[in-house]
């Protein structure tokens, strides 16, 4: 099958990959395609688990803060809500989008796509969902937020006591599932499969 390198436009005759192989551009080193073992099924499993963890992460205390006998508990949605309360509506929408909304929509679309794909059936929404999925990709900042939480903890620890809530661990688990989902799902393989199914 002929393809071209996305980064340097070299015309390449790509052989069919065996499981566990990946193809690199011989000129610039760009990773053209991967073929993880049982990729679609595993991606579906990770995405479902991720959605459960994300639901849990939004339902319990995320962090709590204690100073001079007073305490304040924050939840995950409050990360964005407190910016809104402070008069920064646009920034609140961006932060809420980057850390919860975009990743949630991506995982929901993936589950909706992979259920028919794994069962070898076509669904009329496969193409638009796949387009949106990859358009949204760069705007999901799950792992960046997790590092942000850790940085915040270290910043606050000097002046007060901070406790990690159940939601923090659920969000950490969601991060692992999210990254696992994306890494076992090959973009080229997904589009080839969608084309086969819609033929």
């Amino acid at each position, binding site marked *: 099958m*002929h*393809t*071209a*390198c*996305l*980064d*340097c*436009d*070299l*015309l390449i005759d790509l052989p069919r990959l065996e499981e566990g192989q990946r193809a690199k551009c011989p*000129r*610039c*080193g*760009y990773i053209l395609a991967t073929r993880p073992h049982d990729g679609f099924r595993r991606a579906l499993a990770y995405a479902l688990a991720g959605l459960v963890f994300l639901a849990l992460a939004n339902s319990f205390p995320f*962090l*709590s*803060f204690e*100073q*001079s006998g*007073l*305490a*304040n508990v*924050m939840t995950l949605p*409050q*990360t*964005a*809500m*407190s*910016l809104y309360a*402070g008069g*920064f509506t*646009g*920034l609140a929408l*961006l*932060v809420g989008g*980057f*850390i919860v909304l975009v990743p949630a929509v991506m995982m929901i679309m993936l589950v909706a796509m992979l259920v028919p794909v794994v069962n070898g059936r076509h669904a009329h929404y496969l*193409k638009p969902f*796949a*387009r949106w999925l*990859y*358009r949204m990709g*760069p705007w999901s*900042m799950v792992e*960046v*937020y997790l*590092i*942000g*939480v850790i*940085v*915040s903890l*270290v*910043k*606050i620890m*000097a002046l007060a006591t*901070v406790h990690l809530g159940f939601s923090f661990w659920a969000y950490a688990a969601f991060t692992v599932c999210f990254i696992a989902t994306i890494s076992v799902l090959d*973009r*080229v393989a997904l*589009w080839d499969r969608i*084309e086969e199914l819609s033929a």
Partner: protein
Amino acid sequence: MSGYAADTAASRGLALCHVCFKLSPVEQHICPRCGEHLHLRTPDSVQRAAALLITAAILYIPANVLPIMYTEQLGNTIPSTIMGGVILLWHHKSYPIAAVIFIASVMVPMGKLFSVGYLLWSVRAGRTSSKQQRTTLYRMTEFVGRWSMIDVFVVSILVALIHLSGVIVIRPGAAAVSFAGVVIITMIAAEAFDPRLIWDAGEDADE
């Protein structure tokens, strides 16, 4: 098709769809698989990336000059800037965290502005050397872009968490908005830049 090196898809009039990665003749205009518009190269790549880069560079000034957050403690309001926060952490001997914030909020955005600027200049000047290194620089720029949002997230978390009325309250500052703007606009600038332009310049003697 003239002007493209013989071994490229563009030289045969073939365009790779940037959404679904299917190779199709460019005269079809629309990708037969996913419906995206087909182009041999991203249209107006250099102009769009340059315009976004200038916007980001301008926004970077208020992002550093204005306070990113205010700490209200026992009646006093203390504004803090991005660099102020780094210096304070350094004084408190939180060296690793000071380094993380410094790298994510100062070095990465500055590095992105310079590297996209350099890539644009090198393409405009028709440079033929170090194509591989420039492609790697482009990939790094694309990869690190999102990580600069750390400081904005830290401010959001502090604002939500540190809220004990009358004792200590943290409020967001205008620099948080400018800084988020810098991060988002440089991400779009990196996406607007087409790395294939690096390879379109003629062969170099050492390659």
